[in-house]
């Protein structure tokens, strides 16, 4: 029995299909990530799973309850950390937590105890009695995470928990999330568009693009799909076809004026690749080699890099129509 089951969940806003027949399951205690660029549909998926938005079709259950039929039961079992700030800035940190505890029906002693514990966890005890309006962005984020954890939810949803935070705060937040996941076996569903976050933190990752989950597995298995090193060539002209015939090239993805080639022992293949381009009269401007990352997995399944998508207003997309997926 999975604690979270999502079946063909779909939501359309006017023209955009924000979430398009998304299905996945999450077993209890997992730290599950949804990785995708801006507009992929991560927040919309979360809003449906947390009963804040009605799906157009499909179904989902959280902790054994249907998100459409049994909204109150679902709400009782979950916690949510929103992407956008959701604190009362005219209350102190402690008062925000107290509000939360009472709304979840926590008894006075437990409430007091938990407020102390979670404030300690996110290192905000000394600022607890200040108005939230005086907190920095990172402190507000930490308070929101503390609040999400406070009532021991069975499933905690975190929508881009580290968006816009500095590296140090981000690492701290990862640590809280890990600890909560380990100590209380809290199932965590988090969204992110940082691939390092998905890679380093999540047990399994669903890669999301344009409302669909295009790949879903452990970060390791996903990277193994690429199976080799990634050599990225920047070139004046030409396309991937010239490399198609080479036996040692396992896959080619073109994005803009760059080619990403999947090859074993990349450092030894670079001279061969450059020579091959020269043979076709094509000049290579730069070369980059790296071990496969989730970025490459995204690239392979969508034909675009996460960064392309982030920058990708509709206008830009018109200029560079998305490259067809190879193979």
């Amino acid at each position, binding site marked *: 029995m999975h604690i979270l089951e999502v079946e063909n969940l779909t939501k359309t806003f006017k023209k955009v299909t924000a979430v398009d027949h998304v299905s996945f399951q999450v077993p209890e205690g997992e730290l599950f990530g949804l990785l995708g660029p801006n507009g992929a549909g991560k*927040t919309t998926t979360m809003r449906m799973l*947390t*009963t*804040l*938005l009605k799906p157009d079709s499909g179904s989902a259950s959280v902790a054994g309850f249907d998100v459409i039929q049994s909204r*109150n*039961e679902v*709400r*009782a079992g*979950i916690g*949510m950390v*929103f992407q*956008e*700030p*959701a*604190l*009362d*800035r*005219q*209350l102190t940190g402690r*008062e925000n937590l107290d*509000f*939360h505890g*009472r*709304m*979840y*029906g926590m008894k006075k002693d437990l409430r007091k105890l938990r407020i102390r514990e979670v404030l300690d966890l996110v290192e905000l005890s000394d600022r607890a009695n200040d*108005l939230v309006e005086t907190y920095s962005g990172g402190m507000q984020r930490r308070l929101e995470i503390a*609040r999400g954890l406070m009532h021991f939810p069975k499933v905690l949803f975190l929508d881009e928990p580290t968006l816009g935070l500095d590296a140090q705060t981000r690492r701290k937040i990862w640590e809280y999330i890990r600890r909560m996941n380990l100590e209380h076996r809290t199932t965590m569903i988090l969204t992110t568009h940082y691939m390092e976050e998905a890679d380093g933190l999540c047990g399994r990752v669903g890669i999301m693009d344009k409302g669909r989950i295009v790949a879903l597995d452990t970060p390791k298995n996903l990277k193994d799909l690429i199976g080799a090193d990634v050599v990225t060539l920047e070139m004046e002209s030409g396309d991937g076809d010239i490399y198609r015939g080479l036996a040692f090239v396992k896959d080619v993805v073109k994005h803009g004026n760059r080619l990403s080639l999947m090859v074993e022992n990349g450092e030894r293949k670079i001279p061969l690749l450059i020579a091959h381009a020269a043979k076709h009269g094509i000049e290579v401007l730069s070369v980059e080699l790296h071990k496969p990352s989730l970025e490459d997995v995204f690239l392979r399944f969508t034909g675009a890099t996460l960064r392309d998508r982030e920058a990708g207003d509709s206008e830009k997309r018109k200029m560079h129509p998305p490259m067809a997926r190879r193979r």
Partner: protein
Amino acid sequence: MVSISGQAVYMLWLREMKRTWRAKSRMIGALVMPLFFLVFMGSGFRRATLPGMPEGVDYITFLIPGAIGMSLLFSSMFGGLQVLWDKEFGFLKEIMVTPVSRLSIVLGRMAGGSTISLLQGFMILLLSTFFGFRIHSLSGLLTAVVFMFLIAFTFIGLGLSFASRMKDMHGFQLVMNFVVFPIFFLSGALYPVQGLPVWLKPFVYLDPLTYGVDGLRAGLLGTSVHPPLLDFAVLATICAGMVTLGSILFETSDVGQ
């Protein structure tokens, strides 16, 4: 079966009190307008007698129930529309994702909003004693208090209804200009409605505040256009309707991004 969580209602009420206490200047600011009406119009028209004004009542005394009604109207609408602020600052999502029944949330909002707005109403009543106003009987005072409650809940319900159907705060000024001010001017708070042109009369009778102000006059001055019981019956009905409408619209409202 919808359950009501007393703790949640209390918490929402308490939050409203804390926020208001921390923004005292706003509360005082809200008192200024009705007081200005009393001071400037009351003294400017001191000697005026308008057709339809009760015998032996000077203008400023006539105006006092109107100023109380005005203060209740504005602060209650504002209280209902507070939901827009919560939407804007994202806090509404935090409220809506909790397992508390939507009815409890509405009740909490109404409890908080009505407390603030009744406090303001009572302050105006208290301050009006400086203008020579005297309460003539306990039963009259109690009648006035009943009407104050009805006015408060009616307009919190109306404010909540608008807030539930508005995406953001942009519509706030529109509601103020095209809903609140007409309600105020048509209610007879400032002048006897007998003087208004005939084509406006239907609107006067559609205006809930008409019955509210008339009821307040019955209680505070002992004179009214309609029998107070009629005022009560009409306003109580409208009030129940508004509170229900506000609750339903709120429950089905979009929480926003």
